[in-house]
């Protein structure tokens, strides 16, 4: 078994694991990668650069190809087209055991016949590490994921959260240049999932490693990742920071997939400086800020996030009236959804449409709360609107 490829340098210290070559060059470059299963094009021409030290999330609904892409990075599938460059070297056709990449599997895939210690040591033994070094590294890893005292247990004697930690320690033990995480938190309950999200981020920062996580949970991706790639039908439709993805989605589909949103379809009427006036069917005439990429005439959708919509009993006082041409829509409260920190109101607009408004419950007593069928004014600024091609 000869490995022509750079192996995980198991002896290197993680803190100084700056194994990527010349600065500026991405650690991982995916170039026009495609994979077809029978007639189904699972991954359709994906190109992406990932820098060393990034926490990158691949986000998308199930069947969008994100897992297939991850499996190609790990080496379980070979791409039909394109190249995968790790530190400048094409690894697209290398076998999984030849890659300095490790993966944390969705249901952990712990070896049921091996103890926690042997699970973690598995990859180290394969790398031919000396026994004493293996012992040191294993106890380091056990401490890192806080599993002290459980080393001799078998996987089925552990709780779900503990199994998750073993899987993480096992994948990290070889100090891979790249760690892939396939829905790593999907099997945990909500509270544990939130705690673990924080721990994963902390760990990634401390080790300075590059993480690529696959998830269908947009909140998880937003919380943890520094950059998110959204996939749809095998294609990467937007790569952006969480904030940009949320506030400036590139398409209607992305806007609806990431978070809640109010969408009103309409046609551009006229341009007024930096403002665009759009006539909508369900929400009357709306004034919106001109998008960064100028748009011509035609059909558009105006998108407003629910928390950007303010509600008031009589409409905004005119002190805010200077310069801003506010959008004001009259309506009645049709539905109230109390969520603890916020309350989501559904407002039936007089113009015919429905508008969601998310209001922070900043006071404990509900003096500010609206009641069903109460008349309200929903208002928002042009800058809070996003214009999307319809």
């Amino acid at each position, binding site marked *: 078994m000869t490995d022509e490829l750079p192996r995980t340098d198991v002896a290197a210290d993680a803190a100084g694991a700056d194994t990527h070559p010349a600065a500026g060059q991405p650690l991982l470059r995916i170039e026009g990668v495609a994979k077809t299963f029978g007639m189904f094009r699972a991954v359709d021409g994906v190109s992406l650069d990932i820098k060393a030290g990034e926490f990158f999330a691949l986000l998308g609904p199930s069947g969008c190809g994100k897992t297939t892409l991850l499996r190609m990075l*790990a080496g*379980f599938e070979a791409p039909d087209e394109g190249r995968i460059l790790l530190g400048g070297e094409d690894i697209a056709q290398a076998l999984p055991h030849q890659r300095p990449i490790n993966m944390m599997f969705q*249901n952990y895939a712990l070896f049921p016949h091996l103890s926690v210690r042997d699970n973690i040591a598995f990859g180290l033994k394969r790398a031919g590490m000396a026994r004493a070094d293996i012992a040191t590294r294993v106890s380091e890893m056990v401490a890192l994921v806080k599993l002290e005292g459980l080393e001799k247990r*078998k996987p*089925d004697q552990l709780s779900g959260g503990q199994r998750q930690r073993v899987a993480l320690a096992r994948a990290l033990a070889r100090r891979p240049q790249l760690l892939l995480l396939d829905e790593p938190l999907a099997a945990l309950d909500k509270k544990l999932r939130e705690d673990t999200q924080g721990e994963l981020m902390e760990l990634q920062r401390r080790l300075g490693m590059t993480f690529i996580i696959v998830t269908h949970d947009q909140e998880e991706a937003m919380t943890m990742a520094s950059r998110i790639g959204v996939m749809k039908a095998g294609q990467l439709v937007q790569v952006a920071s969480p904030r940009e993805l949320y506030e400036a989605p590139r398409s209607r589909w992305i806007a609806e997939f990431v978070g809640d949103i109010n969408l009103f379809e309409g046609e551009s009427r006229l341009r007024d400086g930096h403002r665009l006036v759009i006539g909508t069917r369900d929400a009357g005439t709306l004034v919106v800020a001109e998008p960064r990429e100028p748009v011509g005439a035609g059909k558009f959708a105006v998108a407003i996030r629910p928390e950007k919509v303010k509600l008031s009993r009589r409409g905004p006082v005119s002190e805010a009236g200077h310069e801003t041409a506010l959008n004001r829509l009259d309506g009645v409260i049709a539905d109230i959804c109390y969520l603890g920190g916020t309350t989501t109101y559904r407002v039936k607009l007089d113009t015919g449409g429905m508008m969601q408004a998310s209001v922070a419950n900043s006071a404990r007593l509900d003096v500010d709360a609206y009641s069903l069928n109460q008349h309200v004014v929903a208002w928002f600024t042009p800058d809070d609107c996003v214009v999307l091609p319809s």
Partner: protein
Amino acid sequence: MSGRRIFARPARFAAIAPYLWMVLFFLVPFAFVLKISLSQTAIAQPPYEPVFDLTAGWEALKAAFGALSLDNFRLLGSDDIYVFAYVRSLTVAVTATALLLVIGYPIAYGMARLPRRWQAVAMVLVIVPFWTSFLIRIYAWINILQHDGLLNQTLLALHLVSQPVVWLSTDTAMYIGIVYSYLPFMILPLYATLAKMEPVLEEAASDLGAPPWQVFWLVTFPLSLPGVGAGVLLCFIPIVGEFVIPDLLAGSNALMIGQTLWLEFFTNKDWPVASAAAIVLLVVLLVPLLLYERLQKRQLEQGR
């Protein structure tokens, strides 16, 4: 309450049914055989004495008990024929079981990795030979292996040999017959454990740097051990006592214990010695069974 009463009885019966089965079909016949093994051969009907006669009274019964002896077991130990037969049976069983494992494992593994609908087809193909009588299939092998049989004709036609090879009445023929007959019993339990195993475990091993042979040796094989154990026992035990296949395919110079039993029972009409030989065989076979059970218990205690 009434619901509980309805279900209680069948449940209790279900719990004792296996024991009832054991007593009726194993312990009682075993007691008969044990008793005969302690008797002496006689030219009579039945061909041994003493015969327990419950109508003859207490004294007669006591005398009958007194007439039992361990002579037959001493004979088994002192006569080479029996010792050789036992040794040969064990050798044949070990060799054949090893062959079966080596041949059956790749087949079972291949089946378990087929697409689901093909797995069902493969399963039927493995079981299909059972639809023909076992004896007919062994006779078919005689046909194939005989002097001008299919095998020799093929070999001659391909110019692989210049003279017909003697297959029949050799150990090779016997091993072919045994492996052929017992292969399904090795494949099915192996297939059952391998099909249950998650392929993602093999991926994990390979992701952690294990080349294919290590993936097999460190993950696949250890996880299939329950199936290996079941397959080995399912083949080994009946092969030790195998009678038909060695009788029809192997030569007559070295006998297996099954053949010796047959001779004692039907040719020599020596039921007591045959019974003693059967009892010893049973004890010999209990050893691997107990070992297997202990192994399983240890695996359970470790949380599998």
